[in-house]
């Protein structure tokens, strides 16, 4: 199959179907409603489930129920809607069910705006709901990568029995780009007989299954939390993904940037190179687990004077960048947060201002 021109939101919907996910629940919100519109047509064609829930709270639990009984399931929403799903994310994580959540991030806080943003970084990587849980968070930089990440998300969610979040932004959802869809994934979800409530009759063993998150006994709760932590630690070992750019040069500045704005940074780096000024970039593709080691190593290069976190927020990822750099280099931040994406020129000026400091 060749490349086709597709809007990000629709491509995300199609990618889920090709990943063998035929169950979708959602509530409309700009800038991602096209996913629901697209899947309201497509799911019936492929014999799948489409349901518009009464709220994002309900949708979160529709996912919990469906995932709990062993189905591949996903939803899409945008920032205020994801806030309402925070409770369900906490429960689903504790009950160890696989499910995929896509956040096409818009500006916040509050109603914020409907333009692109990365201001849900903390919400996605540090919590959003209560308790000791983590999501595996992936951040695409365009429509093609959004498709690939959605298709990777389901097997990863099943591997870890944990929710996976795709953190996009309003621009990725709205823009049209040429995409090539990978082959269909095998549509049968992994074997869930040892934990899912898929009905005792369908299983070999006579044991009934429980999907739950209550542990009233302190020891049992702590043991449960250790099990969860072990999974998050395993993610840190096995799932870190990032892309280095211009890293083999004697760069003076290291940019850390992800998602749509990393593409502007790339242009800025190319333009600076033409001036003879080398700048490199680490682009995290997973935000949790975060590419801490790669950033630390890149920052430690002798030529590197400063590390800059460039993001569409008022300074969120920069905290993880600082944590990764371990004080070996000064860490600066540059961000925009109203919905305007900075131009390469603006980024070039910012980078220059940090080296002449």
């Amino acid at each position, binding site marked *: 199959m060749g490349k086709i021109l597709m809007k990000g939101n629709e491509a995300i919907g199609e990618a889920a179907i090709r990943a063998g996910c035929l*169950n979708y*629940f959602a509530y409309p919100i700009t800038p991602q409603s096209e996913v629901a519109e697209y899947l309201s047509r497509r799911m019936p064609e492929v014999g799948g*489930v489409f*349901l518009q*829930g*009464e*709220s994002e*709270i*309900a*949708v*979160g*639990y*529709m*996912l*919990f*129920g*469906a*995932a*709990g*009984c062993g*189905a591949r*399931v996903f939803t899409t929403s945008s920032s205020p809607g994801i806030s309402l799903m925070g*409770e*369900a994310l906490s*429960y689903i994580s504790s*009950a160890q069910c696989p499910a995929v959540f896509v956040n096409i991030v818009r500006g916040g806080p509050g109603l914020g705006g409907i333009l692109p943003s990365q201001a849900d970084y903390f919400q996605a990587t540090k919590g959003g709901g209560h308790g000791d849980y983590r999501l595996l968070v992936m951040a695409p930089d365009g429509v093609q990568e959004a498709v690939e990440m959605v298709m990777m998300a389901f097997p990863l969610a099943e591997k870890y029995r944990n929710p996976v979040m795709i953190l996009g932004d309003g621009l990725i959802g709205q823009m049209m780009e040429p995409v090539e869809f990978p082959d269909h994934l095998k549509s049968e979800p992994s074997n869930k007989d040892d934990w899912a*409530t*898929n*009905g*005792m*009759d*369908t299983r070999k063993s006579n044991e*009934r*299954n*429980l*999907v*739950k*998150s*209550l542990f009233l006994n302190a020891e049992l709760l702590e043991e449960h939390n250790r099990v969860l932590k072990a999974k998050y630690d395993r993610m840190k070992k096995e799932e870190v993904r990032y892309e280095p750019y211009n890293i083999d040069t004697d760069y003076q500045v290291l940019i850390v940037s992800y998602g749509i704005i990393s593409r502007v940074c790339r242009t800025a780096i190319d333009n600076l190179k033409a001036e003879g000024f080398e700048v490199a970039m680490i682009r995290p593709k997973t935000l949790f687990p975060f590419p801490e080691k790669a950033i630390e190593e890149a920052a430690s290069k002798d030529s590197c004077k400063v590390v800059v976190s460039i993001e569409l927020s008022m300074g969120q990822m920069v905290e993880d960048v600082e944590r990764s750099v371990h004080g070996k280099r000064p860490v600066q931040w540059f961000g925009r947060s109203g919905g305007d994406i900075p131009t390469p020129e603006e980024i070039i000026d910012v980078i220059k201002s940090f080296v002449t400091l």
Partner: protein
Amino acid sequence: MAKTFKKPEALSDQHTHYCPGCTHGVIHRLVAEVIDELGVRGRTVGIAPVGCAVLAYNYFTFDFQEAAHGRAPAMATGIKRVRPDLVVFTYQGDGDLASIGMGEIIHSANRGEKFTTIFVNNTVYGMTGGQMAPTTLPGQKTTTSPAGRDVEDVGMPIKIAELISALETPAYIVRQAVIKPKYIVRAKKAIKKAFQYQLDGRCFSLVELVSTCPTNWGKTPVEAIKWTEENMLSYYKLGEYKTPEQFEED
């Protein structure tokens, strides 16, 4: 000698954590008997609420999921939509269903989701120590209405069976009580009918059960039953509020 009064297969051997005289236990038994009689234990998924029945799964012997407070109907929707062959029920208290989870139950009922809800109305938040619920009777004292429910201040108790019956979508909605054998017999019939509608793929079904919470009412089990009969049944009238057949006759 043959046992004549056996424990249903769907019920486990465990002692429950419920207080003496609490009607949760009676309701568990009725549900288990119905599941046995319908022969669906192997494809049933129950959903436990947040409330005194949060550990309900310890007393049943089939698959269970544990919801967040009020969200059981959304979970049941998720399960039933992706696995229509499973028999799904939610088990919910009045705080769970009529307060924090009102949105989920109304919309599940209105979409005509093909699951069954067992709604335990004991007029208080049992688990958290007897606070006022949306179903607390006028003048009834609770830990958060120490002078008695003031309807000028917080409105009248919500009649769930009537409220949900007002929806235009066909459904089976019934209210029964679990306080004395004559009521319990009718309650079991209602539960069985509700599950049967689900098995036939007909409609959403909800059985409201007028129940007791002797502990938080500060009454003995016997007093609690008397109080229920004298005070609750005149406000929460028993009977079938809606059947899907009603819609076919129109």
